[in-house]
């Protein structure tokens, strides 16, 4: 059954060392709760970006909370490269599992379907393949002359997402961003921050149903208004480009990053 908790309590429920699945900026990212994870000093995360990372991931890296990063890209979008990510790569501070978006989806789909692997087109000849023990080149069992990549299942221990709405029963409205649904299906547990909570079941409205993540996948819900800020929330509010720019500039140095994170009402 879905628990209803405060954002602070939710931050305490995500342990150091777990494999944490995160949605992309503007489509399910929960930078508000990620800030609380940083404030409480979370460490040693294996972050899975589904399929790419943005500001919330860059902040986690800057805070030294990430030991392994599995992603297809990390970027601040219009605000340019992700400064803490770039610095950590240069310094070898994180273990990097570089991938490509559809391979992340294929790995999550394998976990969703409870199979150990999925085949995927492309990739052969990419240097990405050299660095991934969890990817292999196999033969198509129905045509041995054809080579095809198989990728291992990706099953996060916990996924953390932000959504417009949950109901009192734990059902969460995601709408057409079904990659977030896939992430939740693939994960052992899913924690959701939401803008608002509906007293009426979201499953009652047949119009909404196809975009609802059912409560059985949702371990906990916390109301956190504007929880996607300063990135956006699809079909709800746009990103605060000025704030992301401000972050991008500050985070160019480790000191600037710490000042930014501390200055936003953190633990410092």
């Amino acid at each position: 059954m879905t628990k209803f908790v405060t954002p602070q309590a939710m931050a305490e429920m995500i342990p150091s060392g777990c494999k944490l699945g995160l949605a992309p900026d503007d489509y399910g990212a929960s930078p508000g709760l990620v800030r609380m994870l940083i404030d409480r000093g979370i460490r040693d995360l294996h972050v899975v970006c589904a399929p790419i990372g943005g500001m919330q991931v860059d902040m986690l890296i800057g805070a030294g909370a990430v030991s392994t990063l599995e992603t297809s890209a990390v970027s601040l979008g219009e605000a340019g490269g992700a400064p803490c990510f770039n610095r950590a790569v240069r310094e070898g501070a994180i273990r990097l599992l570089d991938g490509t978006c559809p391979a992340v989806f294929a790995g999550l789909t394998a976990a969703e379907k409870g199979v150990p692997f999925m085949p995927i087109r492309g990739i052969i000849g990419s240097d990405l393949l050299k660095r991934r023990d969890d990817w292999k080149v196999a033969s198509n069992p129905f045509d041995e002359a054809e080579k095809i990549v198989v990728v291992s299942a990706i099953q996060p221990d916990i996924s953390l997402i932000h959504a417009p709405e949950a109901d009192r029963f734990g059902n969460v409205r995601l709408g057409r961003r079904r990659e977030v649904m896939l992430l939740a299906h693939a994960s052992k547990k899913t924690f959701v921050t939401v803008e608002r909570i509906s007293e009426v079941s979201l499953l009652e409205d047949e119009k909404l149903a196809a975009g609802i993540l059912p409560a059985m996948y949702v371990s906990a819900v916390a109301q956190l208004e504007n929880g996607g800020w300063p990135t956006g929330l699809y079909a709800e509010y746009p990103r605060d480009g000025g704030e992301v720019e401000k972050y991008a500039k500050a985070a160019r140095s480790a000191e600037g990053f710490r000042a930014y994170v501390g200055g936003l009402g953190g633990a410092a």
Partner: protein
Amino acid sequence: MSQSCTGRELLIYTIARLLNGVQHVAVGQSSPMPAAGAMLLRAMNQDAGKEDVQLSILGSVKHNSFTSGAGELFDCAAQGRLDAFFLGGGQIDGQGNVNLVGTGDYPNSPVRWPGSFGSAYLYFLVPRVILFREEHSVRSLVERVDFVSAPGASDETVYRKGGPHALLTNAALFSFDRDARRFRLESIHPGFDWRDIRTTTGFSYDNEKCETTTPLPDSKVLSTIRGRIREELHECYPQFAARMPGPD
């Protein structure tokens, strides 16, 4: 209205020309010029009474009909329902390999770019991939990329329906010959000559002494760019649209 075409307008028009004949084109995030070029093709086709072009502009609510999440783009490509896509890349080499990861030795790249995104997949599956990189320099167009995010060509043991179709920069337009695995200089933008291109391109290519100038949009096309396309861009790229010349 000023009818002298800006460099960006030339690129937008050239992109639309490169897309001629496609039914469905997708544009990745943070790609205002490819989005503008695809929108221009759609507008030109509508004006000419030709069949409608389907646009899937990632990040757009209005110009995107995917309803199954971000994975649908990739499925769609694999199903053969996507005709064209754009790739950039920190480095592009003479065999059409693209590098979106970083310079030097992996993994501790001294210059790191965001990452490969969907390139290692879409390059294999989308018939017409347009490589778009505004910077035309020996730094961006190299003999051999430091890291292959996605290879320009594959052997016959690999399923491959797609690959590089053209390379467009702020100075020139190349086509790609998949059998020879080489670029060919097709035209040079106004303000540059073949020697400029030779000295700023880090790889070898055919038709070095190209004398063809990249065609400019006519005034009707220019009006469409400055009117309708600028309007349509505003949803996803408000800053970019604001910097474009307007309708008068």
